[in-house]
């Protein structure tokens, strides 16, 4: 089986939906970066720019019964999974109306009502959490598949590697999505990963494929097949999605000027733009309509977030315990 055999071609509605999703993430991130610059978002963000196809398409392959876990670079996953952009932005601004009531911020955004079990600031941590959740839902007789997103850097974290083993061993319905953007912060994947990423997953007993992570429809095909396979009880699968981070590792880099990617490399990486790739599949007018729809939604989101109250500092550790005697 190769990744090509995995799926089907997308009908037009799906094409539009995918475009809307990548465009929403793109514009959300661009606006969020502005809010970092203006100081409305404190602490900065890890922009998802350039990787939109992966979140958008993988989440498009899921049903409402499914769950995901995300990473430090998580806005795309959370939005693609259907989180309200206003509440997401409010979270980034630390407002009481935020997804996490302002307690989590960029790296911890979660919406359990949508099966978003949380972004996670520790690289490699979420894979085993997703595996446990997927296993538990299966024990409960539910039809849930879990997707866990992570980067190329996470492939060197022991706890993630352990999770691959547990998932394969117990045939857990979980899809491992590795977003290989070529770098862990400033460390090139070639200097960090000996052997190969997919060989690792295969060595733990699960099928693994490398796909083009810049084309939303390629990602959709592959992930649809992987999710169907997991749902049917055939166990976990691993997708390495080749992608490129268009912007900084984190917005601190906008001030820091770290020298690790050549301008030529960045330009080449940015040339394969998932928003452009998907946009080219829509008639100009339809695309423009989606664009203004997205812009209107983000205007409303910004207005909502900016207008939202800050949490009351009187009880800063609210929610620390479910019960405390």
């Amino acid at each position: 089986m190769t990744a090509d055999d995995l799926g089907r071609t997308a009908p037009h509605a799906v094409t539009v939906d995918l475009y809307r999703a990548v465009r929403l993430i793109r514009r959300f991130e661009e606006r969020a970066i502005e809010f970092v610059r203006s100081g409305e978002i404190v602490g900065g963000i890890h922009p998802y720019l350039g990787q939109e196809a992966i979140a958008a398409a993988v989440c498009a392959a899921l049903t409402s019964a499914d769950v995901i876990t995300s990473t430090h670079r998580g806005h795309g996953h959370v939005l693609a999974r259907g989180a309200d952009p206003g509440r997401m932005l409010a979270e980034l601004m630390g407002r009481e109306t935020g997804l996490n009531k302002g307690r989590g911020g960029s790296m911890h955004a979660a919406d359990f009502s949508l099966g978003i079990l949380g972004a996670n600031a520790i690289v490699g941590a979420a894979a085993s959490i997703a595996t446990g959740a997927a296993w538990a839902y299966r024990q409960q007789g539910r039809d849930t598949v879990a997707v866990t997103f992570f980067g190329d850097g996470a492939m060197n974290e022991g706890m993630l590697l352990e999770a691959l083993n547990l998932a394969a061993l117990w045939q857990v319905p979980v899809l491992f999505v590795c977003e290989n953007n070529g770098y862990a912060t400033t460390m090139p994947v070639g200097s960090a990963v000996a052997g190969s990423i997919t060989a690792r997953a295969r060595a733990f007993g699960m099928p693994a494929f490398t796909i083009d992570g810049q084309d939303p429809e390629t990602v959709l095909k592959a992930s649809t097949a992987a999710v169907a396979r997991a749902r049917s009880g055939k166990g976990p699968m691993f997708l390495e999605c080749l992608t490129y981070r268009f912007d900084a590792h984190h917005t601190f880099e906008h001030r820091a000027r770290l020298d690790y990617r050549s301008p030529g490399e960045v330009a080449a990486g940015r040339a394969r733009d998932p928003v452009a790739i998907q946009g080219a599949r829509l008639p100009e007018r339809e695309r423009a309509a989606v664009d203004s729809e997205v812009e209107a939604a983000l205007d409303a989101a910004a207005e909502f977030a900016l207008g939202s109250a800050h949490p009351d500092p009187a009880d800063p550790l609210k929610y620390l315990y479910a019960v405390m005697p």
Partner: protein
Amino acid sequence: MPKLSYLKALNRALGDAMELDPSVFLLGEDIRVAASNLTAGLSSRFGPERVIDTPLSEQAFTNFATGAALAGMRPVIEFQIPSLLFLVFEQIANQAHKFSLMTGGQCKVPVTYVVPGSGSRTGWAGQHSDHPYTLFAHVGVKTVVPATPSDAYGLLVSAIRDDDPVVVFAPSAALGVRDDVDFSTLAPVPLGVGRVARSGRDVTVVALGHLLQDALVVADELAGVGISVEVFDPRTVYPFDVDGLAASVAKTRRLVVIDDSNRTSGFAAEVLALAAERFTLDAPPRRVTRPDGAVLPFALALDRAVQPGRDQLVAAINAVLEDQ
């Protein structure tokens, strides 16, 4: 009345909890054959889907339990040795513990972590003899160290029912303790409520886990020479029953803590700090602990010399009674 051992009480607590609540399941190494005896009989009683042997992947299976808890289960993890808690410290302190606040209360993580055999195991040496309950109390994870079979039962049941992560330390030296127990009286014991294990007038000794037995023996001995020792067992290290201790100390006005942690910033340090802040004492309080940085040496006499013991406790009690 039938005799119940501490280890058997823990086993009974697991069985009862699993019986009552189908969302409770067990994860750990060699728990189907029950190498530690903690889970004896449970695999055949509840089946291998609820008593799950894991590969040696402590970090992943600890997070796996967190994930299962997020999905509505109540996992109980057995750790074979106390230092495995070091290996999963991130997964407990930085993941399980933090999820509730970080998500703004969207979820809870009712995982119980049990170490049947914490502290010195007599001859297991440096990497198998830790007693790291203070570490969890310090980061704010609920931390339980039962001393008696009834409490072992009642506190473990409460830990499993609790909606937050809870670590339960079952000291190696307590596992064999046996009590006359009317099984019908076994019941949950709330977390955070200590008890006066022996009433006295002259000095309050705080002791938990296996050290409670030592404190009671010492209290008996000293009763013979006219010293009346009150023994207070906090049962949980965090939350700590400061009111219970305050009531005891208000009576005795003297305080000694015996604690199997290292001295610096150990459990005993917290009790002494509370005393310094809040209690009126007739003499400076004392603590009997492991020395700073303690690594338990293998040779038995050295291992014993590093652990807090009865002689030191007697000396500390005498000292606080002599001091003014």
